[in-house]
């Protein structure tokens, strides 16, 4: 593979890795599971969704009437609500195992599409030179360090380059998180209260 193709591919993979870190794997798994539940042909999931919809309907009906004025109807709705909630909880525990399995597959997919290629490239193109450093720009020992692990001194390979890019992206992440975080109010000096004698 051409060096510039590899550089751009690895850059995108590293950006994807950062994106997964920011969004968190958990969120991705949950969102994908929600979509799967919506479009899946599985009957168990359809039953679960129907139950959830029924519960929402019963709650809406219950909140629309006064328990004191329509006690019998309210209590019957309450009984229905308890029964449906119990059934939903049972379905949920069955689905929890399925969800855990689904989350595992999502995790495998993320690893296969981002982490695995990175490792593969690092191994496959470990001797490919990406950049050359002009002699004299840095001291000799820095040139030697930048050439690790397999390069001749003065060359920069994929390992060092991706490590540097990762560090830069890490700093960008810190800045973005800081900018998106809540502003801390400046502490106000409390006026001294005079004692009433």
């Amino acid at each position, binding site marked *: 593979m051409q060096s510039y193709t590899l550089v751009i591919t690895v850059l995108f993979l590293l950006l994807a890795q950062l994106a997964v870190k920011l969004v968190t794997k958990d969120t991705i798994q949950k969102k994908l599971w929600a979509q799967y539940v919506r479009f899946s042909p599985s009957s168990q999931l359809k039953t679960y969704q129907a139950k959830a919809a029924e519960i929402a309907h019963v709650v809406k009906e219950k909140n629309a009437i006064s328990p004191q004025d329509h006690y*019998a109807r309210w209590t*019957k709705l309450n009984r229905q609500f308890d029964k449906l909630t119990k059934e939903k909880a049972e379905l949920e525990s069955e689905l929890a195992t399925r969800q855990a399995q689904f989350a595992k597959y999502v995790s495998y997919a993320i690893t296969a599409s981002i982490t695995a290629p990175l490792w593969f490239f690092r191994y496959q193109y470990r001797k490919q030179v990406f950049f050359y450093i002009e002699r004299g720009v840095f001291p000799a020992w820095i040139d030697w360090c930048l050439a690790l692990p397999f390069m001749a001194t003065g060359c920069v390979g994929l390992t060092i380059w991706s490590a540097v890019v990762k560090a830069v992206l890490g700093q960008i992440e810190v800045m973005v998180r800081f900018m998106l975080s809540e502003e801390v109010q400046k502490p106000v000096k409390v006026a001294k209260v005079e004692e009433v004698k």
Partner: protein
Amino acid sequence: MSDLDFALEPTLESVVLHDSLKWVFVGGKGGVGKTTTSCSVAIQLAMAHPAEEFLLISTDPAHNLSDAFNQKFGKDAKKVDGLANLSCMEIDPESGMADMALQAQSQFNNDPNDPLGGMFKDMTGSIPGIDEALSFMEVLKHIKTQTAAPGAIADVAAITYKTIIFDTAPTGHTLRFLQLPSTLEKLLGKVQTLSNKFAPMLSMLGGGAAQQQQTQEMLAKLTEIQSQVTEANNQFQNPELTTFVPVCIAEFLSLYETERLIQELISYNMDVTSIVVNQLLFADSTEDECKRCVARWAMQKKYLSQMDELYEDYHLVKMPLLGKEVRGLANLKKFSKYLLTPYDPVVNGGLVFDLEDAK
């Protein structure tokens, strides 16, 4: 078309005349008239079966049975003055705990100067649910007596009661108490499995023959308790043997609590077929001059009609609010009559101001 054809009669006849009932629990939120109702049920049962013995047990430390009958009762069953086949018992959890603590301590350490002396009592006294456990121990004792073959009872003084009526605690711990049998069953089962697994190892660790014998005795005792607990569990879930009578008043919160209670009882497979609605005013505007009574009766009627719709599969017994507290055997007899024949305000209205003063 009338649903009255399908409505169940509004009396407790199904409880009082039910021949095979052994356990009757009366429960509900505080202040609804549980004790009055439990005393009334006990009296009607005793009067319907004069040749049989009945026992009314209360675990409320406020000695409500003594107040209800104007007679002192204690932790030993004592007959009610005027009703020879009804006995009452008030289990005081605190003194029961003290007895148990003394007994346990005497087994372990007889030294009166032992600084750890009071520790056992302090420890066990603060266990939540201990009062339920104690009343349950009492239940187990009676199960032992009642299920033993005639002639096999070692204690000659032990009486076999036809039915035992429980005036349950007002704090809502009743449900925990009813859960005890199944909880204990599981607990004891686990202890049994564990002890079977570790018995060879423990015997290897030594301790001599005396220690081993003590362990064996303890295990035998546990097995005995376990079989009694299983029996209690089976009896409480058998509708021919056990029933629960919730008591409530015609107000929203009481009804809501009663509904929750009934749903929980259903989940424990406990039979509930009757509900007592107490403290009803029966103040129709044409006959009653008290505007407040008429207004409150209107509110009560609203809830009563809702209850008729909600509990059409239950016997809904409607009891009146009287002019005085229902205390003493004579007054309780007058009041309890209406558990079996529905109260009619027109015909029976005289009862409201007819109660005798306490002597």
